[in-house]
């Protein structure tokens, strides 16, 4: 279903996809780091953040990357070196795998996968393996505790996340992410199609649970026990430095961006604008310029969601590990199950 204005050979498409993937991962990561980690956090703490590199410190990230790349690649003596070195790559790869199914426009996607939601949730948990082996292979007690905490936490929060998404899938009637976008933008609320029908309205509970689970999956405060710098120094990342730490770092923020993309696809209407505005009937009617505007809309929505993620991160203290598990198993999962049940009943009834 390639309806592009120009014909591109297959190798060209592949190259474009690779480049696009890298951009789709690194650009949000860089933006999030600069905008939120450097600037928003500083402003929330009544300071200015980095100001020296570039205007308003905008080149700071490049300076940091340059610094990390120069550093020696150190592995602890007792570490299981091969696995130790592999771990950050696994974490980063999972981010790239995730972005593969996110649609950015009618034709601007990497793959159009029928079970996109299922795939996204599945590869999202690959990073657990990376974190667990990072914690284990570092031969450090703090890392080990951090890795174990991360594994327990990510597994616990995978479930509410999946369950929160099920409501959306029921409502959209498809697991194809592109289909979910179309379903939201062609929908109408009691006959009013002016804003489409973003699922956040009906699936608000699911949205909240999804965002909480994302927060936990990203190991951001208040769920940052695996890193917990005041207890475990840096958790599973303690022994990493140089570009391997950089990979974890990019992985952390790129995953935040990608999860925000997915959340905006699932709940906020993704790249689309309400089709009724221009009288489009379906995906086939969407003109080509949406391939340019779509990513921008997605980017704006991603920034909005990461703003909330980061805002919470900079404001809250962290839970204790057992409280986190209690929260997941005793509150989030029952609530999301209830949400599914209600959604299903309404879906069948309407």
């Amino acid at each position: 279903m390639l309806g592009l204005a120009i014909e591109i050979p297959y190798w060209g498409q592949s190259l474009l996809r690779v480049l696009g993937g890298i951009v789709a991962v690194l650009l949000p990561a860089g933006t999030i780091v600069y905008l939120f980690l450097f600037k928003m956090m500083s402003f929330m703490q009544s300071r200015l953040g980095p100001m020296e590199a570039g205007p308003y410190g905008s080149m700071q990230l490049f300076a940091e990357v340059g610094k990390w790349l120069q550093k020696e690649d150190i592995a602890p003596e007792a570490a299981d070196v091969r696995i130790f070195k592999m771990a950050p790559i696994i974490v980063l790869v999972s981010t790239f795998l995730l972005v593969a199914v996110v649609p950015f426009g009618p034709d601007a996607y990497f793959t159009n996968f029928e079970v996109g939601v299922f795939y996204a949730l599945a590869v999202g948990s690959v990073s657990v393996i990376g974190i667990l082996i990072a914690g284990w292979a570092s031969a450090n007690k703090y890392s080990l505790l951090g890795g174990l905490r991360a594994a327990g936490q990510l597994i616990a929060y995978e479930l509410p996340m999946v369950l929160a998404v099920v409501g959306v899938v029921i409502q959209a009637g498809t697991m194809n992410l592109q289909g979910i976008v179309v379903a939201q933008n062609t929908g109408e609320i009691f006959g009013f199609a002016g804003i489409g029908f973003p699922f956040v309205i009906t699936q608000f509970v699911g949205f909240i649970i999804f965002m909480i689970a994302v927060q936990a999956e990203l190991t951001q405060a208040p769920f940052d026990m695996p890193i917990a710098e005041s207890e475990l120094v840096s958790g599973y990342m303690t022994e990493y430095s140089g570009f391997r730490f950089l990979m974890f770092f990019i992985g952390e923020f790129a995953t935040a961006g990608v999860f925000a993309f997915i959340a905006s696809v699932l709940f906020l209407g993704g790249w689309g604008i309400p089709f009724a505005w221009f009288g489009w009937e379906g995906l086939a009617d969407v003109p080509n310029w949406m391939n340019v505007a779509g990513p921008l809309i997605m980017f704006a929505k991603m920034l909005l969601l990461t703003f909330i993620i980061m805002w919470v991160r900079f404001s809250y203290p962290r839970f204790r590990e057992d409280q986190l598990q209690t929260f997941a198993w005793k509150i989030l999962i029952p609530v999301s199950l209830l949400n599914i049940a209600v959604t299903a009943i309404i879906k069948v009834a309407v």
Partner: protein
Amino acid sequence: MPKVPGLIKGLGVTFGTLVRTAKEGANTVQYPHEKEAPPIRARGVIALREDNCTACMLCARSCPDWCIYIEGHKQLAPPRRAGGKPRQVNHLDRFDIDYALCMYCGICVEVCPFDALFWSPEYEYSEPRIADLLHDKDKLGEWMETVPEAPELEAGAEKKK
């Protein structure tokens, strides 16, 4: 009025600070570009007025850290009145303060009976080598330029004699 959940209030505090920083500016200063002036009384560095020093050794003896080194010798100075006998005065040969040892307690400045030592609020004299923190009398003399006037006192204070 129902109680606002603490989680929401916390978000409000951080957002409020964000807005305030954006509107009114940060509470920090961009150090090498702009500098905050220390208070007048700030104990930054000790300045020496060499003319006043009589090498009486009081400061060196009252220093808790033993970081003041003084050497001096006696010499004849011109008489005070015309036709009088030449006087014997102490001449200062060496006056070193080792800022690597100094605790900045100010006892030396206080005990000095001849007003030869002063506090200056200057603070930018860090050195890459620890030995360079030993300031000799010339360097201590240079700090004299930065010594401020003593501040006026608050109402109700008794004037110093």
